């Protein structure tokens, strides 16, 4: 795949991926499609370096794999970010921060879980202080499995997410909003009294959603 006639290396990869992206999103209205297209072309990532996956984020963002060509670029604060990347195992202590950061992001917002640890606990399946299934606590839009996944896999995951966005699939945030009580119950189960304050989400209940 890296030695075609009309392209070479990353160019091929990019062309293939972009071709895939272009096919999705046919069922939306014109404006929605436009918006979805803009959204998928520009993903600001809040890379939450929770575990060893953080190592893999660096090559992804820098010259070797250059995620910027897909419009994927780091964001400094959750306010500006579209995608929250949970890179690996998530300690309970960190979970509180993750939840708060997630709730502070502005919709539409997406979550990518890296590695097996976010799926089932991975090698930390019996650890006392990590969570096993990330999806119980915040809605995950895309898993990239592996331990750890290579940057190529990450790119695949991001592109898959972009395809979903372009296709107009609602973000996991809708799920979070719909099932807020369940999520909060799950969170409370592991965090106990040490929950993040409720003012970052309680307006969901108050009907503040347009």
């Amino acid at each position, binding site marked *: 795949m890296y030695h075609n006639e009309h392209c070479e290396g990353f160019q091929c990869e990019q062309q293939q991926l972009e071709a895939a992206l272009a096919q999705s999103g046919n069922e939306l209205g014109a404006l929605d499609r436009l918006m979805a297209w803009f959204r998928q072309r520009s993903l600001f990532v809040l890379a939450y370096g929770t575990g060893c996956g953080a190592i893999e984020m660096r090559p992804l963002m820098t010259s070797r794999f250059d995620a910027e060509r897909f419009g994927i670029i780091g964001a400094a*604060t*959750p*306010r500006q970010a579209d995608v929250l990347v949970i890179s690996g195992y998530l300690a309970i202590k960190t979970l*509180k*921060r*993750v939840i*708060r*950061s997630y709730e*502070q992001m502005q*919709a539409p917002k997406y979550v990518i879980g890296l590695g097996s640890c976010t799926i089932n606990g991975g090698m930390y399946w019996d650890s006392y202080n990590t969570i096993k299934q990330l999806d119980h606590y915040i809605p995950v839009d895309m898993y990239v499995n592996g331990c750890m996944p290579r940057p190529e896999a990450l790119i695949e995951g991001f592109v898959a997410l972009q395809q979903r966005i372009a296709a107009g699939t609602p973000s996991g945030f809708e799920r979070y909003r719909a099932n807020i009580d369940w999520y909060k119950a799950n969170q409370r189960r592991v965090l106990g009294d040490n929950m*993040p*304050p409720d*003012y*970052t989400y*309680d*307006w969901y209940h108050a009907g*503040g*959603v*347009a």
Partner: protein
Amino acid sequence: MNLITKLLFLGLSFTPAATFFTWDGAVAWSLLNGITLSFDLTPLSAFFMLLLAIGAPLIAVPMLREKSDESAYALYALLLLGMQLLLLAGDFIGFFIGWEMMTWSSYLLLLRSPRTDLEGAQSYILFNLVSAFLLLAGMLFLYSITDDFRIQAVDGLLTADKLVLFVLFGLAFLIKVGALPLHLWVPRSYDQAPDLFSAFLSALMSKMGIYGLMILPLLFPDGFNEISGQIFNGPVAGYVLAWIGIITATIATFKAISQEDMKRLLAYSSIAQVGYIVTALGVGSSLAIGGALFQALVHTLVKLLLFITIAGIILQTGHRRFIDLGQLISRMPISFFGVLIGIIGLAGMPPLPGFAAKYLMYVGLIEAHWLLLLAAMILASTASFVYCYKLIYGPFLGHANSPEAKTATEAPWQYLIPQIILMGMLVALGIFPGWAIDVLIDPVLIGLNMTPIGTPAWNVLATSYGGYDGVAVMGVFATVFVLITVLFLLVRGNMHRAASPYDLSFCGEVPTADTPLHYGAGMGRELRRVPLIGWILRHTTTGFYAGLTRQTQAAAGMIGTLYGSNPQTWLLLAVLIFAVTLTIQSVTGA
């Protein structure tokens, strides 16, 4: 009774206005043989009288809120009388009388604040008296040469005489305006004075120093050329004056940035703003003088506004340090706009009139080709953004840092009325800078025998270097602002207000009431790391003056040991002196 006193006081505060509008013809009062006081309203003094006429009632109105205080009212009456005498005086004796009445009555008013400490009070009165005595020395010197106390152009003086006069008068007035390094009294007194009186001190009384400086061009009508040689296409004296002004402005600005108290910050900012005026006076061209007058006008309005507003904040919260305030924007919205308009005027941003003043002064400097001064002035005025921002951020934005700040309510109406009037004046002046030039400033310039600046229309500020249109700037800005706001609100999308002030992007952490979220006090601290600013902020004149005081006291103590308590010692000294003198005189054979 109470009400009548208050009404009387209010009426009293309108006396400058009454003088301004009804004064006609000169009045003379023969004090002694050879000393006749004459009083008249010249265009220059009329300008400053106008400032007084605007300022006095606006400060009187919020004062009415307090319990009626006859002695304070009486002192204010004396103060106003002194200032009017000063402005009306056609000779230096009258000027000095007004000047001194102003000095001591303001000192007594200063003492009425419980915060006034010994250093503050002493430095206020001593610096002002030094200023007054220098003025007295200057006028006596002038008298010894010309046999005349009248304020009029002096000619036929030797260059050295002119220089002495210039130095004496210049120093006297520079102390009054608080130029560095003679500014020690300013921050102390502005800080410690009763809150509303600070407004009076800063907005009106410092203008009297400016008025004094404005007399200098009157005394030396051919510029400062004859006093000293020429340098860089200008007189040396003017050049020195301009540098004094700009160094004052720059250093005071940095000092202001490092203050942690609202009133001290404003005090230093007053020093800085007046420094610009001094610079412009040093330039001495009609554009620069016009700029100085404009700046005086704007600074009066702005400092009235800011000090009254801040007095309101202090009244409502009881706090004056940035670290104790915060988030008052929702509780004191009108005060917020007061400070906002105030700092925009202070920073000299378009479209408010502070910009017009700065514009004139810049153009004056460019026209004189004094570009290094220009650079320094730009430095000062850019640095002033920092303290302006601190001034609005500290009390109004950020987080409430004390229980009082959390529960404060809007200032009482007595404080709000002057604020609203002043805001209106500032905005109107900003839109119509040409009006101020045409109506207020050009007559003064003509009175000083200078070319008027002139203006094609009231909304245009025009100079030989081009001008700008106040209405256009304001219009475009306002239109775009309204359009974009409407457009923004029309576009789809949900906007919601954070449910808690602690809903902050804080690295995932959860800030609480104990988290030091208010950045007000520390703001500008990092400026110390810039070598120049750090150097400036590390050095003060306090040590010098404290040392001077200490040395004087030590000398006094040393001499004081002569005054023992044993009569025999006294007599022994007398006899010894007798014997020694007799011997010396006999030996030398007088």
